[in-house]
């Protein structure tokens, strides 16, 4: 009975070795997947990989909501009065600033901050080999670091266990997004994304334009209230109901946004990241000139230009690229050779090709 069963399987496998594999490969070939579909980090993708967001959008809806509501209230209540009493430029300037703020915010949130793709298995294996041959230790070594010289300054490169590579200088692994980000500044919950090499200029233009926008709105509101108060006093007019809560939000947010803009202006001028500043990586030992930061150009103007107006680096994760169809074939090809070889010699080894194929 056993022989009969083996013979039945044998006949089918022998008779159509190629065609039994072909339908399966045909089923897998038609739809090529894009790289964003298998991206290992905690990100969300929309529009077929064109838009990238962090998994947790943080308080981005709140940020957008506050900006939009404050601006709408400004246009609805303050602009009509100020247009009649002052000039029509006020809503125009307000509109331009509002657009600039919203566009910068969306670009900061929806752009790849400079994510480094994880090392492929062969690259990771090569690095491991180098570590073990140079370290010559039998046990797994403590957190792996590599020291290099950058502009005569010793910098330690850390090994990232998640991405399986030595992090380039100024790169840090964001635990919220589970990615290594180049020139990592910080993960901003207001924006719902990391701020890194590629979107730092968008972030900076967002906070600076937001500072101008809130200051402008606040200035117009104060002007409006002052003029109204005079009218109320002089003409005994009725005072309009208070929309002070939003003006109070505006007032408090000005100081925090202005403070943040000032802080980031200092960072840009000295070519530092928030991460480095907080950790005190290059704390000045001998004074302002010799701050120890190996990346500075020693000129405020060049530092600003390099950070904000430098060439725009490309996205390294290639979200919309197609995955190479070689996920399965190398194993399938090996099994095909194996099955044809074995089928010629042994009938009871026929079980192996099918099990190899399903694995």
């Amino acid at each position, binding site marked *: 009975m056993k022989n009969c069963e083996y013979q039945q399987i044998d006949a089918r496998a022998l008779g159509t070795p190629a065609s039994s594999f072909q339908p399966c490969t045909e089923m897998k070939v038609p739809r090529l997947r894009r790289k964003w579909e298998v991206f290992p980090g905690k990100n969300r993708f929309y529009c077929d990989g064109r838009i990238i967001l962090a998994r947790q959008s943080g308080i981005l809806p709140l940020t957008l909501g506050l900006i939009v509501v404050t601006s709408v209230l400004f246009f609805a209540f303050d602009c009509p009065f100020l247009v009649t009493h002052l000039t029509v430029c006020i809503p125009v300037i307000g509109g331009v600033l509002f657009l600039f703020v919203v*566009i*910068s915010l969306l670009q900061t949130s929806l752009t790849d901050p400079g994510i480094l793709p994880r090392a492929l298995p062969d690259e990771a294996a090569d690095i491991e080999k180098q570590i073990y041959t140079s370290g010559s230790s039998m046990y797994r070594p403590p957190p792996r670091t590599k020291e290099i010289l*950058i502009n005569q300054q010793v910098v330690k490169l850390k090994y990232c266990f998640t991405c399986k590579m030595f992090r*380039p200088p100024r790169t840090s692994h964001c635990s919220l997004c589970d990615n290594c980000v180049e020139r990592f500044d910080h993960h901003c919950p207001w924006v719902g994304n990391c701020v890194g090499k590629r979107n730092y200029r968008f972030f900076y*233009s967002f906070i600076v334009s937001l500072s101008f926008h809130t200051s402008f709105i606040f200035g117009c509101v104060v002007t409006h209230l002052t003029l109204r108060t005079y009218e109320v006093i002089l003409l005994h007019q009725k005072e309009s109901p208070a929309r002070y809560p939003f003006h109070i939000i505006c007032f408090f947010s000005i100081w925090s946004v202005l403070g943040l803009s000032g802080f980031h202006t200092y960072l840009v001028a000295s070519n530092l990241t928030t991460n480095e500043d907080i950790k005190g990586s290059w704390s000045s030992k001998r004074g302002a000139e010799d701050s120890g930061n190996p990346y500075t150009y020693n000129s405020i103007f060049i530092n600003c230009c390099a950070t904000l107006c*430098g*060439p725009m680096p490309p996205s*390294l994760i*290639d979200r919309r690229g197609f995955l190479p169809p070689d996920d399965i074939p190398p194993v399938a090809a090996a099994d095909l050779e194996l099955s044809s070889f074995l089928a010629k010699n042994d009938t009871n080894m026929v079980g192996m090709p099918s099990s190899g194929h399903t694995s």
Partner: protein
Amino acid sequence: MNHSLQDIRQQAAISAKVFIQRDYTNGTVCQFQTKFPSELENRIDKQQFEETVRTLNNLYAEAEKLGGSSYLEGCLACLTAYTIFLCMETHYEKVLKKIAKFIQEQNDKIYAPRGLLLTDPIERGLRVVSFTKTLNSH
């Protein structure tokens, strides 16, 4: 038996690739080490290898150069709230295309006849330049 065959294939896969790492001595600009790896000694000569890597380094330096044209591009982009990036190809992307062409040329003329394949570093996130030893030559 299947296990050992897979192990052998993996070993072969690892030793079939040579990786040239990044050189950070000048900062975060994209440069690769010009040190000649010992695994390629019997395939290509040192001068050829160094020339290839040096040309690549020069091309990347050109892409990341801070100069008049890059500042102009940056300022223009800033004034248009960076929406210009949606319709225009950046200087960096133009140089990346040049690099891809250069690598293609090098592969066709020099490395393929010697049984090597040079992969574009952009496919590895600009981390490494990898030489793959193809099977047709010892």
